[in-house]
C-alpha cells in the first residue's frame, strides 16, 4: 500500500482573469521506505504539492490518500490527528519553538496528541539519539548550530513512528556539508520504513532520493526511473 497517493490532483487559486493553476492533474505515489524528491523552477507547484499532501490545504480536484485514507471529506479533527500521528513536517527555517529545549521541541507533537510527558520525552530522546544530537537535548534553539537545529526538526518530524515525512527545502539554509548530512539522515529515516517527499531545487540533494519527479507549470513533466546500482559506475576505464 502506498503511504501517500495523489491521483489527478489539481489546485487553482483565484478567478479569471487572475486564475492561477498551481497544480494540474498530478499523479504521485510514494511507498514506505521510499524517498521522492520533487524539483522544479519557482512557481512550478512544488510547495503546493507538499501542503496538499500534508492535508494543510485541499485540492480543487483529485484524490489525496495517506496510508490508504482519503483526505476528502475527512473531519478537521481527524485530519489534525493525522498530522500529529502520521505526518511529519520539516521546514527550511526549522520552526523550532524558541522557549523549548531540543528535547521538548522534539516531544511536542506527541504531547499535543495526549501522550504522557515522560513517554513523549523518552521517544524524543530516542529520535534525537538516532539523529546524533542526544547530547544537545537540554539546549535551546538559539544555543544550537544550524545543522543541529535541523536535526532536532527532523527528530520532531519522525518521533512517534511517523509514516510520512514532508520536507520543504530542508537543507536550504545550511552549508553544503551540513545539507548533505541532513539528506543522509532523511534517507536513513526512509531506510527505517518512513516514506518521504522532499522538495528541493538542488540536484545534489535530490540525488539522495530513490526517485526524482520534475514539476513545471503544475504538471509532472518527467521523473527518473530507478537507476542501476552504483557498481555500474565503476566498470574500470583505463587512463590513456
Amino acid at each position, binding site marked *: 500500500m502506498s503511504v501517500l497517493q495523489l491521483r489527478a490532483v489539481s489546485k487553482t487559486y483565484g478567478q479569471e482573469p487572475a486564475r492561477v493553476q498551481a497544480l494540474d492533474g498530478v499523479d504521485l505515489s510514494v511507498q514506505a521506505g521510499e524517498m521522492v524528491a520533487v524539483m522544479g*523552477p519557482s512557481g512550478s507547484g512544488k510547495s503546493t504539492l507538499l501542503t496538499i499532501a500534508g492535508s494543510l490545504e485541499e485540492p480543487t480536484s483529485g484524490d489525496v490518500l495517506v496510508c490508504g485514507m482519503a483526505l476528502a471529506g475527512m473531519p478537521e479533527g481527524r485530519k489534525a490527528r493525522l498530522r500529529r500521528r502520521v505526518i511529519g513536517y520539516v521546514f527550511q527555517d526549522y520552526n523550532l519553538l524558541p522557549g523549548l529545549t531540543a528535547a521538548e521541541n522534539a516531544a511536542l507533537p506527541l504531547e499535543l496528541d495526549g501522550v504522557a510527558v515522560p513517554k513523549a520525552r523518552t521517544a524524543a530522546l530516542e529520535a534525537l539519539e538516532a539523529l546524533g544530537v542526544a547530547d544537545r537535548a537540554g539546549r535551546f534553539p538559539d544555543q544550537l548550530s544550524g545543522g543541529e537545529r535541523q536535526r532536532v526538526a527532523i527528530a520532531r518530524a519522525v518521533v512517534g513512528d511517523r509514516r510520512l515525512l514532508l520536507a520543504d527545502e530542508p537543507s536550504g539554509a545550511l552549508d553544503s556539508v551540513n545539507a548533505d548530512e541532513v539528506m*543522509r539522515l532523511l*534517507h536513513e529515516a526512509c531506510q527505517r520504513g518512513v516514506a518521504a517527499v522532499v522538495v528541493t531545487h*538542488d*540536484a*545534489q540533494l*535530490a*540525488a*539522495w*532520493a*530513490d526517485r*526524482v519527479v*520534475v514539476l513545471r507549470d503544475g504538471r509532472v*513533466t*518527467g*521523473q*527518473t*526511473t530507478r*537507476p*542501476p*546500482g*552504483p557498481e*555500474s*559506475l*565503476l566498470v*574500470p*576505464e*583505463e*587512463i*590513456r
Partner: protein
Amino acid sequence: MSVPHALLALLTEGPKYGLQLREEFEAGTGEVWLLNVGQVYKTLGRLERDGLAESDDAGQDGPQKRYRITPHGADALAAWLRTPPDMTSPPRDELVMKVLVAARLPGTDAHEVIQSHRLYLLELMQQWTRLKEGEARDDLGLALVVDAELFRLDAVIRWLDAADARLRRAAAQPSRPGPVPAPVPQLRRLGARR
C-alpha cells in the same frame, strides 16, 4: 590528467617500484581511475629522461627497478601544484552543441532535449550518491573523486536549467530589429583559433 605529476607525488613518500606506483595511484583515486602498466613505465622513463626521477640502476626496465624523485622533480611537482591549469578556452562540449543545435533546428523541441538530458544526469547523480553513501564513506580518495563528479554533473544541470530559462524568455519576447552588432571582440576570436 597529469599522471607524471601524480607519480612524482607518490615518489615523495619514498623510493617505489613501478607496480607499486600503479597500485597506489589506483587506490588513491578509489579505483575509479586505472593505469595501464605499460603507461606507468613509459611515464617513469620520461620522468627519468627529464631528470625529474632516477632509478636504482641502469638495468632493464621492469618490476625490479626502483624509482625515486630528484630535487628537480620535487621543484617541478611544487610548481605544478601552485600553477592553475590553462582554462581560458572552453572545451568543446557535446551537450552544449546539442542545445545550440536543438534551439535552431526546425521542428525540434529544445526543452524536451534539455529535459531528457537533465533526467539522465539526475539518474547518474543518484548512482554516484549511492556510492558516496556506501563505499566512499570509508575511502577518502574515492569520496573526493565522487564529490568531484557530483559537483561536475550538478554544474551541468544548472547550466541546462539556465539554458531552458533563457530559451523560454527568448521565445516569449517579440522579435524586434536589434542594434547593429559590435565587431566580435578580439579575445573570442583568439580563443576560437586555439
